[in-house]
């Protein structure tokens, strides 16, 4: 058997754009990843530390062969990645994981919190390409920590920005903004809620979607190593078909799961 899809790519940083003190968008020259990546998938990036760092894909520019990644600095490894400069090279595994499922949907509502708005931006991009009606809720702590507001606005979809500090459209969490949106929204069949962000926020979003009888997909996060399903360290607790709970791998069984199976 031959290696039918190369998984490791040596890629070059095309550009780096700092959004705020904690967040940077890296653009990589990675045509093979750009050609096949789906929203909700991630890549596993090499850095000077031992393990790779899994980062969700924020957008792809297929014709240019570029992949955009939103990097939030949470430790030394992500700090180093956020400091990469144009021309730097890094080893990338990907695209990895099961992303969001958009097949058959007529309307998508994305609900992102903090850096969770990055992978959902990719969802919005693909919805626009496929003509799926899409709305977005983006929640932040404050206007100062808000990211991608211009980019979401540029997509032309209806977007509601929420901030805990009360200095954006809605004062409160992303789930509060989602509630406001759902109250006003005329129902459309085949609507789904797609969410990514802090776990309590996603839990609140999933509960709300359930109240409105909307299917909900959540993108989970867990400490990871291989990213390809062999090491079993990124265990997520889920409800299996027989009702029992068990662990599935965040990296290959997810990171996107149906909210109904997640054990919060």
């Amino acid at each position, binding site marked *: *058997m*031959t*290696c*039918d*899809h*190369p*998984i*490791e790519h040596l890629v070059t940083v095309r550009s780096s754009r700092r959004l705020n003190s904690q967040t940077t968008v890296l653009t990589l020259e990675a045509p093979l990843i750009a050609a096949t990546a789906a929203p909700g998938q991630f890549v596993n990036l*090499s850095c000077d*530390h*031992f*393990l*790779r760092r899994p980062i969700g894909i924020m957008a792809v520019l297929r014709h240019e062969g570029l992949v955009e990644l939103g990097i939030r600095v949470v430790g030394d*490894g992500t700090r180093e990645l956020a400091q990469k400069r144009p021309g730097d090279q890094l*080893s990338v*595994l990907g695209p990895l994981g099961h992303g969001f499922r958009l097949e058959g949907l007529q309307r998508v509502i994305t609900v992102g919190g903090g850096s969770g708005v990055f992978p959902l931006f990719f969802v919005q991009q693909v919805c626009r390409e496929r003509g799926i009606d899409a709305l977005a809720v983006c929640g932040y702590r404050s206007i100062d920590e808000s990211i991608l507001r211009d980019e979401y606005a540029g997509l032309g979809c209806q977007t509601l920005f929420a901030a805990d500090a009360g200095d954006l459209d809605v004062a409160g969490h992303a789930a509060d903004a989602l509630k406001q949106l759902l109250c006003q929204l005329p129902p459309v069949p085949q609507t789904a809620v797609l969410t990514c962000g802090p776990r309590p926020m996603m839990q609140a979003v999933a509960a709300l979607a359930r109240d409105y009888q909307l299917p909900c997909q959540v993108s989970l996060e*867990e*400490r*990871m*190593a*291989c990213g*390809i*399903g*062999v*090491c*079993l*360290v*990124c*265990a*997520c*607790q889920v409800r299996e078909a027989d009702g029992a709970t*068990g*662990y599935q791998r965040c990296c*290959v069984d997810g990171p996107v799961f149906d909210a109904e199976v997640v054990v919060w």
Partner: protein
Amino acid sequence: MVTTAVQVGSLSLKNPVLAASGTFGFGREMAQYQDLSRLGGICSKGLTLRPRAGNPPPRVAETSCGMLNSVGLQNPGLDVFLRDELPFMRQQGCAVIVNVAGHSTDEYCEMCRRLDQTPVDAIELNLSCPNVREGCMLIGSDARQIESLIRQVKQETRKPVWAKLTPNVTSIGDMALAAQRGGADAIVLINTLLGLAIDYRTRRPILGNNTGGLSGPAIKPVALRMVAEVSQMVDLPLIGVGGIMNGQDAIEFLIAGASAIEIGTASLIRPTACTDILEEMTALAQADGVTDLAEYRGTLRLWGY
């Protein structure tokens, strides 16, 4: 051309590179990225008689030059393995070694009895997992239990039985001698070193299981020392494992006395590590004018004093 074939006791391997248990699944994911027939063999994920859910997350913590894991033998159990995974592994064109973990001697014996009737090439007894409460490392840190367990297991199977030992002992030599007395066909050195990672802000362990097993380049010197030490004490073939990241590391283990090597944590960083390392080994041998990888085995020239 460099000859790569090696013998581990009665088992012929096309080359000395094996994928270490717990870092390669049952080969399915890895087969997407490389031709597994190029490997010497695959050691399965550690299996227990019944399915095991594993430990609560987080299960990984990065360390300097390595990582801690506390997976805790999450596996589908022997029945599901035999039905769903072994046929796939058998088709890959390399040796199949089944890693077996039990709660008790009876469980090890039952699993070996059942594996005797299957087309596996060898059984690797996991006497060394540090992440479970029963069996494994508890047995593997007591020479009498090692000897007794292997002696009983050998009554149940004609397959080669490899003893994978834990480094978390006072004298690895005593454990290896016990394995030899019990009738082991080979000794695998080493499993992970028990460790702890702390989040200083929360004052809690990072791992959900509190402790975990340290692997990666951080443990390579410990593994090399144990292989070299044990090779002076027992007459059994040794399989070296611990922090091998490249061809040079692998050859160092052969020099220390190993007949074959296992690649573990490196596969988590680079999915093609096993096949890459084999290529690096043959390239290094060629550059050294070595025509047969087996020539490296046990050629360590200790300083005299």
